[in-house]
């Protein structure tokens, strides 16, 4: 019954997972930067710019990690 032994579905699962992993970190990074800008420091766009860059880095790192530790494919 579990189709997870099927390489097609295992690969599909991994692909779906890594896609959102990239996106979520970017959104969180940008969002954190924006919140710092808007509510704490009033520091123009710079918080969001730095946050987006850090978010992108974190996203790639997460995706890399996710592909490393996927159990038994």
């Amino acid at each position: 019954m579990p189709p997870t032994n099927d390489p097609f579905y295992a690969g599909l699962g991994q692909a779906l997972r890594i896609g959102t992993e990239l996106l979520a970190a970017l959104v969180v990074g940008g969002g954190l930067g924006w919140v710092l800008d808007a509510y704490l420091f009033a520091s123009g766009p710079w918080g969001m710019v730095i946050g987006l860059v850090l978010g992108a880095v974190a996203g790639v790192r997460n995706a890399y990690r996710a592909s490393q530790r996927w159990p038994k494919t």
Partner: protein
Amino acid sequence: MEENPLHPFELHNYISVSIGGLDISINKAVIMMWVVVALITVLMVAAASARRLVPGKLQSLAELLVDFIRAIIMDTMGKDGMRFFPLVATLFLFILFSNLLGLIPGAYTVTSQIIVTAAFAVMVYGLSLLMGFLIHGAKFLGILVPPGTPGWLLPLMVPIELISQLARPISLAVRLFANMTAGHVILGVLFGLAVSGGLLIGWLPFAFTIAMNGLELGIAFIQAYIFTVLTCVYLGDAFHLHGHEEHAH
């Protein structure tokens, strides 16, 4: 066919209930959740009531599911993860059954509401944080410092790790919600094309609808599986603290 493909996801209250400003109205999603819970309970109780050495159909299905969840926990958390078995099994069964029942035409997919998936994700992530701080105390903050980081990189690595930690519940919630919603939108659009196309050309999108339904069955299972695996991984991170990366390959 100018029907909005997102229309089936709108919820309308059947019975409006409000206690102290808290809106607990009964709508389609709530009823569907009850159906899912009732179905799982009936199925599992019926499967466990016979308890024969040579299992019948229902009992072997239940044993298959339990073995499957057990294998996920053992793979990701090891033996001490078994204390989370009830939580993980509940999450897996609930998500799996709501994904699968949602594929029945006319039924509602509970997991296509982001508030449902977000509640699960926040609960899982909050539990992993709580576990981490209970077991390791303040040392759990070391999860923000990957092992082997030179000191001068710390101002860069800590924000990156913080972001990647905060991204966990969001990616967990968005993944399940987005996959379920997107799948149903595609099915709805294809079926709309089939209906409006008539007999001459409508069979083509209709064939695609059938094919997509098969794929969606797989996706329903895969998404429940991914959510469960990640739940285990996050909980495992809380009490292994860096130990995970070495023996996970």
